């Protein structure tokens, strides 16, 4: 148990990063696992939620007992040393009939010249009738020449009538990201994804989804809103596969500014006559009349742009 009751030990930069990625100003209620510069910086478990380090030291296993309701797990990661490169495997085992919130997130502050990279591989095993809300924020800061790199991979396995809502946000400071999310849904399972992405400078971001609707009446709604500023580049690649009578919807809505570039590659694959799949995609600059309207209310052109982007990514 001593491993499970460590006091959270973070410096000022790390605390700032934690605030950015997990909206945490103090140690959270409930279960948590803080990781700072590849070390465990604090952990708490509860009667219903257990967190264990993997035997080979590659990550953690989170076990949520059946019927756990209205509890949360926070597992933020921060990197404040230049030159760290780590790959972490986190497995979430959510048993039957739960209703829980999981907050992850990674903040990198790189003031040095070496690249810092965190590759998190998250696997969700959601059992029957469980409801999970997953929130993941990525944030980068620091003015060193070393890059801040995040390559999250998420695998989702959803059992019958389970529900998973994923909110994934990367607004600032991450130089390069390659995100891949795959999901397999059994009968009656429902997956909701809300992705928010903003890139600037010379950043590059790739976000891919492959959602397989395998069970009858399974459904998925994958919505990405993104903004590419300056010279940044984004690629959004969402594929929904209907292997049963199911409902799938994917939407990519993007704003480009300056020399930003966005490539949206939607795809739908229907392998069952009763698979109903829909895709929507739109890319464009901020509408001129939106800026003019806010200017007639007294905002400057720049303030108007900020308001429009903030609202769009809210």
């Amino acid at each position, binding site marked *: 148990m001593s491993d499970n009751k460590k006091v959270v030990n973070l410096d000022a930069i790390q605390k700032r990063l934690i605030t950015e990625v997990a909206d945490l100003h103090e140690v959270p209620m409930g279960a948590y696992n803080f990781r700072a510069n590849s070390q465990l910086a604090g952990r708490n478990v509860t009667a219903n939620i257990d967190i264990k380090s993997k035997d080979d030291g590659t990550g953690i296993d989170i076990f949520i007992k059946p019927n756990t309701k209205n509890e949360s797990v926070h597992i933020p990661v921060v990197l404040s040393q230049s030159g760290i490169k780590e790959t972490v495997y986190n497995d979430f085992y959510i048993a039957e009939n739960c209703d829980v919130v999981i907050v992850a997130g990674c903040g990198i502050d790189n003031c040095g010249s070496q690249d810092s990279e965190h590759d998190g591989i998250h696997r969700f095993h959601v059992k029957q009738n469980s409801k999970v809300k997953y929130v993941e924020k990525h944030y980068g800061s620091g003015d060193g020449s070393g890059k801040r790199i995040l390559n999250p991979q998420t695998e989702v396995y959803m059992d019958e009538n389970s529900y998973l809502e994923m909110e994934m946000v990367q607004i600032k400071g991450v130089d390069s990201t390659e995100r891949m999310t795959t999901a397999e849904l059994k009968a009656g399972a429902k997956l909701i994804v809300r992705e928010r992405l903003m890139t600037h400078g010379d950043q590059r971001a790739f976000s891919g989804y492959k959602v397989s609707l395998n069970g009858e009446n399974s459904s998925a709604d994958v919505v990405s*809103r993104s903004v590419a500023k300056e010279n940044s580049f984004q690629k959004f690649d969402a594929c929904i596969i209907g292997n049963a009578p199911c409902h799938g919807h994917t939407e990519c*809505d993007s704003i480009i500014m300056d020399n930003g570039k966005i490539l949206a590659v939607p795809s739908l694959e229907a392998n069952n006559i009763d698979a109903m799949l829909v895709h929507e995609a739109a890319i464009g600059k901020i*509408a001129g*009349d*939106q800026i*003019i*309207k*806010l*200017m*007639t*209310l*007294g*905002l*400057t*052109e720049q303030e108007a742009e900020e*308001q*429009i982007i*903030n*609202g*769009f*990514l*809210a």
Partner: protein
Amino acid sequence: MLELKNISFRVQEREIIHDLSLKVEAKKFLVITGPNGSGKSTLAKIIAGVEKPSSGKILFNNQDITNINITERAKLGIGFAFQQPVKFKGIKVIDLLRIAAHEKLSINDACDYLSEVGLCAKDYVNREVNASLSGGELKRIEIATVLAKQSKLTLFDEPEAGIDLWSFQNLIKIFENMRRGIQDSSIIIISHQERILNIADDIAVMAGGVITKHGPRDEILPELIGTSAAVGQCYRFKD
């Protein structure tokens, strides 16, 4: 309050407004009417700063505002309600009202503005100003933002465009209320609806990019009845 001096506006080779002059005194409710394509909306945009005149001068409270931009004109006290309300993904009604009011508008105050335009405030205050709202709802929210801005001079560009009849009846009530509470401000409405013309102090008639008549309502309106500059309602819906 507002003075337009010899305004012309040209798009490429075509002149849409020709050497137009107009004076609007304080505490006036002016309706500018005229057939489609006569340049009314362009004139409203020139006053708000959305379009720049090719020549001429605009004075607002004796200050030359010809070369200042939309934002500065808004700050000086010019408000503008669009003919086609703008939609915003992610921006809520309360956000727009707060931007308009330029202060920390409380939910209660925001609700007052929404109630004034006939919207049940609690249903709307947290709605996004997007395509899920009907044309009539968007129009009323547009007017609520202009009310929240509390301008010295408020321009409405064809407020009746694109709204249903029920909303139109309410719109008239809003303008009647504004007319009563005009104090030191002025209102300019671009419209050819007879019922809006009926509550004007003054009426200006535009045709072919010039103002052909401008004077008190009682003088101008009788000449307009039955023309396209004063469109009545379908008889079935008359009071």
